[in-house]
């Protein structure tokens, strides 16, 4: 199972918007550490979900992989080698293999282009087609793969004439037309109604199975992640807190943050009596990340070590990692008991 994407200690930072005068006096500018040292591998043919609240850096990480955002530190290996983004040919080959689906179906298509042009654009931009016939044929196939049948009905229409679900399928068709191997799907269904959403999720899973496509599925909804992905990674303030098989992470969560997310996750059931244990406050501002474990100020089990030393991803059980000192504390207690 070779790796499609490998992130080594990836860091992405932005310069926080800052007053004109301070800028003038070249004062040290506060940095937003959006992605703050992430090590993760995405294997071929799997859907890895990246789950986190707003401000966790999940979208920035997705954009970094696609070179839509500059990296501050660390390395991104695509199919085991670093892509040199200054070399035109190499970038073109990378673009054909790695594609993206955005969240907002109403804004991710150019309102002034016909559907046929939107879907065919990746071909034209990378100069991959010679004749018009070949172009139309590939567009029709991509629309069919995205579940828009009969394709002819959609070719010569404008985005405003389609529903949200249909537009998202056009975006998927446009991503599929280059026969990519890896797709970053950034909250692809969060703006769709439930009845339409499941259709898109089914399509993504089918594409994974039929074409062996690899997905990075970015979402804030833990239950969706559980539904469609093989592995789940929980992200908080720019770092991965926990990563493992989707069932193990949901059923045997180790990290207190994942447990808190599971606790508040809405479930379509009647549980009138249970008053949910809710974390206080909101995700702090990524310009001043707390010392030691970044979750300790809101963590119910925080102890002194959490305040000083930042925990590293370590194995809680086979291929289920978590960045939390509780793991050592428990294993050391077990050793001390025996």
């Amino acid at each position, binding site marked *: 199972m070779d790796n499609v994407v490998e992130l080594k200690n990836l860091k992405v930072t932005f310069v926080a918007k800052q007053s004109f005068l301070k800028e003038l006096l070249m004062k040290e500018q506060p940095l937003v550490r959006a992605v703050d040292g992430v090590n993760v591998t995405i294997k071929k043919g799997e859907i890895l979900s990246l789950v986190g*609240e707003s401000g966790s850096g999940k979208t920035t990480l997705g954009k970094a992989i696609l070179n839509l955002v500059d990296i501050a530190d660390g390395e991104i290996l695509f199919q085991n080698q670093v892509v040199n983004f200054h070399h035109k040919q190499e970038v073109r080959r990378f673009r054909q293999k790695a594609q993206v689906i955005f969240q907002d179906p109403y804004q991710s298509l150019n309102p002034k282009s016909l559907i046929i042009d939107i879907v065919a654009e990746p071909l034209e931009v990378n100069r991959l087609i010679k004749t018009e016939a070949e172009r139309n044929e590939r567009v029709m196939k991509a629309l069919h793969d995205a579940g828009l049948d009969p394709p002819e009905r959609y070719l010569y229409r404008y985005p405003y004439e389609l*529903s949200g679900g249909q537009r998202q399928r056009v975006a998927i068709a446009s991503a599929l037309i280059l026969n990519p191997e890896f797709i970053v799907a950034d909250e692809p269904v969060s703006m769709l109604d439930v009845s*339409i959403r499941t259709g898109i999720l089914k399509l993504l899973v089918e594409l994974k199975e039929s074409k062996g496509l690899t997905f990075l599925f970015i979402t804030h909804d833990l239950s969706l992640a*559980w*539904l469609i992905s093989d592995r789940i990674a929980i992200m908080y303030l720019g770092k991965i807190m926990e990563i493992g098989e989707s069932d193990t992470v949901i059923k045997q969560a180790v990290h207190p943050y994942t447990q808190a997310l599971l606790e508040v996750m*809405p479930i379509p059931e*009647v549980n009138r009596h249970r008053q949910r244990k809710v974390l206080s406050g909101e995700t702090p501002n990524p310009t001043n990340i707390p010392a030691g474990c970044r979750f300790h100020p809101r963590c119910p089990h925080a102890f002194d070590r959490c305040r000083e030393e930042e925990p590293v991803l370590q194995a809680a059980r086979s291929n289920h990692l978590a960045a939390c000192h509780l793991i050592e504390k428990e294993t050391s207690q077990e050793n001390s008991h025996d």
Partner: protein
Amino acid sequence: MKLLRVENLKTYFHISEGIVKAVDDVSFSLDDGQCLGLVGESGCGKTTTALSINRLLPPEGIIEGGEIYLESVKLTVLSDVEIRKHRWKDVSMVFQGAMNAMNPVMKIGEQIAEAVVWHQQVTHQQAWNRAKELFELVELEPGRIGGYPHEFSGGMKQRAMIAMALACDPKLVIGDEPTTALDVMVQAQILNLLDRLRKTLKMGLIIITHDLSILGETCDRIAVMYAGKIVEIGSTEDVYDRHMHPYTHRLLMGFPNIHRPKLMPEPIPGSPPDLIRPPSGCRFHPRCDYAQEICQEQEPGMTTAGNGHSYACHFGGAFNG
């Protein structure tokens, strides 16, 4: 006496393309201190129903028929001037995108105090103190009432909106997707807050949402809407465990439940109907797997399936067969 009674409400939008029958013969009621969840997908008419109560519809939206009673007062016959007295004093609202729902150039404390001064004719200083009390009630730091909306985070803005809604001790608060724009953690905080306030202040609460799964702990009753009509209404237990309408069933299946085995739900084919020329008979028939001849011709009336639980389908529960 019921706190709120809505009977055969019809609200249509007159636009250039034609007449949109956004709400077409909707009836439901609410007791004092009770919480009703109004759930449905976009375009089903849930927000229009809420805006019709206070008559906050845009100019092209007109209440064509039906009655709305707030306790003994018949709202639908009141003139524009008369209905203003009931807005916020009896029925107040918490809107969705809190980012834009507050005046960006006016202090938040002022936006709360102005309603108190207007309806309860108190001095500005008294209203300002009232605003401080309300901030404490919604667990916000009273010192911050002098701040402006852009200085508050998403969660804090929503709490401020709730404080604003409670300013005149209303009998009924309507939340239009109050937690949709929030993170799941903050959403839980807000839902807990709404639940606590409803119980302590004994006020009626209507929560409008497209997310059926969040109504589990907060609502006593749930009404499911589709294409301008209520297709099923009942207690939370009725709708979750004993629902009879195929649309409610499909909607519920769409929300993955980690306590149950992992199964990829079937999407509902087709897309929401065009409300200018809605489908004949039962409006869900073009997308329903159990639709038969009669569904196309005859619109199903409300069949009762237990006390307070009724649905609009000729073949209720067909999905259980």
